[in-house]
C-alpha cells in the first residue's frame, strides 16, 4: 500500500473571522498526480500555501511524509518543490544562475549543485540556453525555467500552481509531459489549473473545492459518475466541475 504524502485534517484558515478554508480533510498518496480544482476564491491557493508552510492554519493539522508541518518544518521543506503561477525567476540572471540560486538555498553545493543544474536544465530542455539571460526568453521558455528552478533539490512532492497560463500549445504539452515524467520517476504531484482538459489528461485523482470546502474528491471516473444521469453518457470533467460548482460567475477580490 502506498504511503501517505499529504494528510490534511480539519484544516481551517480564517481571515477576519471569515473561513476561506473551512475544515478540509484530504489524503494524497505517494505516486499520485492529484488535481485540485475550484472556481476563483474557492480556497485552493490558500490550501496550497498552507501545505507549503507559507501560511499558518487557523486550526487543523497538516502532515507531510508523516511529519507534522508545525514541528518538523525544516525536515519537510527540502522535500517540497513549488512552481508558482507567476514566473518566479530573475530576468537579470542567466538560466543556470537562476537554477543555481534556488537549488543552493537547500544547502546543495559543489559537484552535486553543478549536476543538479545540468539535470534540471536538461529536463526542461534548456541546456542549450543555460548562458542566456532569463529576461530574453519567450513565455514558454520562462515557464520551463520556472519549473527547473523547483527541481534542482530533487523534491519528493511537486506543487504546480497553474503552470501553463499564457503559453502556446507546444509548450503546454511539453510541460504536461514533463510532469508525467517526473511522476513516473517517483515524484508525487499536486496540480491546480483552470484548464480541465489538462487535469483530465494527467491527474489520477481530483478534488473540487468551493467556498472553502471539498465538495467532491475521487478518481476522474468516480467524479463523473457523481453527475452522470445515464450510465452510457459521455461526460467531461468540465461538465462535472460546472455541475458541482454552478455556472454563476465568481467575482473574487483578494484580501
Amino acid at each position, binding site marked *: 500500500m502506498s504511503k501517505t504524502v499529504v494528510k490534511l485534517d480539519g484544516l481551517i484558515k480564517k481571515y477576519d473571522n471569515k473561513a476561506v478554508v473551512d475544515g478540509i480533510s484530504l489524503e494524497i498518496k505517494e505516486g499520485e498526480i492529484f488535481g485540485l480544482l475550484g472556481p476563483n476564491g474557492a480556497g485552493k491557493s490558500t490550501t496550497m500555501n498552507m501545505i507549503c508552510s507559507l501560511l499558518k492554519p487557523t486550526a487543523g493539522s497538516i502532515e507531510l511524509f508523516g511529519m507534522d508541518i508545525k514541528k518538523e518544518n525544516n525536515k519537510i*521543506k527540502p522535500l*517540497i518543490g513549488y512552481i508558482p503561477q*507567476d514566473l*518566479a*525567476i*530573475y530576468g*537579470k*540572471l542567466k538560466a543556470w544562475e537562476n537554477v543555481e540560486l534556488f537549488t543552493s*538555498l537547500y544547502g546543495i553545493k559543489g559537484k552535486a549543485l553543478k549536476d543538479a543544474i545540468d539535470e534540471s536544465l536538461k529536463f526542461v530542455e534548456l541546456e542549450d540556453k543555460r548562458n542566456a539571460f532569463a529576461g530574453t526568453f519567450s513565455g514558454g521558455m520562462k515557464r520551463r525555467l520556472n519549473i527547473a528552478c523547483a527541481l534542482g533539490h530533487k523534491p519528493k512532492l511537486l506543487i504546480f500552481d497553474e503552470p501553463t497560463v499564457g503559453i502556446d500549445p507546444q509548450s503546454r504539452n511539453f510541460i504536461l509531459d514533463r510532469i508525467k515524467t517526473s511522476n513516473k520517476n517517483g515524484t508525487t504531484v499536486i496540480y491546480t489549473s483552470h484548464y480541465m482538459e489538462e487535469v483530465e489528461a494527467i491527474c489520477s485523482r481530483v478534488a473540487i473545492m468551493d467556498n472553502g470546502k471539498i465538495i467532491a474528491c475521487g478518481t476522474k471516473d468516480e467524479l463523473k459518475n457523481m453527475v452522470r444521469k445515464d450510465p452510457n453518457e459521455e461526460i467531461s470533467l468540465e461538465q462535472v466541475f460546472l455541475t458541482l460548482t454552478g455556472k454563476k460567475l465568481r467575482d473574487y477580490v483578494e484580501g
Partner: protein
Amino acid sequence: MNRIWIITKNNLKLIFRNRSMLILTVLGTLLVIACVANAFHSLLDNAERDEGFTVGYEMQEGSKYAPAEPFWIEGMRNENITVVTFKDADPEKIIKENDIDVFVLFGKDSYQLTGNKKSELDTRIVQYVLYNMDMSMNGAVGKMNLPARSLPTEKIAGAENYYGLVEIVYFMSICSIFLVLIYRTERKSNIWLRFRISSCGSTGWYLGKYISCVLTAWVIQIGLILAMVLLLFDVHLGRPLVSIGVLMLAAMAYAAYGIIFLAIFENSAASIALMFMTLWFAGLFGGSFETYMYSSYPETLRKLSPTYYVNRTLVELSVNGSSDYLLPCVGILTLMIVVLVPVGMLITAKKEEA
C-alpha cells in the same frame, strides 16, 4: 551563514548588472559636487583665504600717519602682505587695473580704505591693522604691533573639499536605492515565495539584502566615487583611515535605515519617496546643500540629523586632522545600526507572516 552568502552573492550580481543605476550614482555624485562646489566657491574660498594679498597706499603730505610709515610697511611685509606705494592715485581705478586688493589713502588726520566685494576679508584685515596702528600711535609708534594673522579667521574647508565630502555622504545616505529593483522584481513575480518555501528564513533573506547593499556602497561609493573625487576635485581626507572608517560605518547605518522603507511598503515608488524625503531633510539640516557653518537652520534641527555629525566629522578631519564630533558621530551611527538592523529583520519577518 552559507545561505546568507548565497543570497548576498546573488543580490550583488543583480546590483552590478544594473549598470544604469550604477552609472547614475557615480555621475550624479560627481555632477552634484561640481555644481554645488562651483556655486559656493566664492563664499567658502574667501572665508578660507590664507595666502598673502596686496595693499596699495598713498601717504598725503602732512599726514599724522607719516611717522608710522616704515613700521606699517615692515609689519605688513612681515605678514606676507605686499605693500605698494602710489602717488595721486585713483583708488578704484588702481584696484581694477593694478591687481591691488585693498587701497589705503592716508589723509591728514584720517585714512580711507577702498576694497571690492571680492577682497572683503582682506579689507577687514587691513582695517583691523589700521585700528591697531591708531591705538599704538596714542602710545608709542615704535611699539606698534600688527596682529593681521592673529585675526579670528575660522579655518574652514574650501568649496570643493567641503562639498566633495558631504555629497559623498549624502549619496551614500540613499544607498538602499541599489536594492529597489531587486525588491520590485521579487515582489512583482513572487520570487520571495521561493525563498520562503526553501530553508532560507526571513533573517537570511534580510541579511542577504543588507550585506549586499553595504558592500555595494563600500565598493562604489567609497572605493570608486571617493577615489574619483579625490583625483578630480580639491578634496582631502585629513586622516584617511579614520575618514574611510566613518564612511563605512555611515554606509552600514544608512543601508539599515533605507531597507526599512523598502520592507514596509509594497509600493516601490512610495518607499523611495518617503525614504528620499526623510534623508533629504537630514541632508538639508546636516549641511549637504548649504554649509553647516553658514546654515540658516537652528542648531537643534541640525543636531537632530545624523548627517550633520558625519559631515562635520569628515570636514573637520579634513581641515584640522581631528574632530570633537568623531566620537558622537561613531556613537550615533553605531546606535542606528544596532537598532535599525533588528527592526528591519522584525519587519521582514512580520511581512512574511502576513
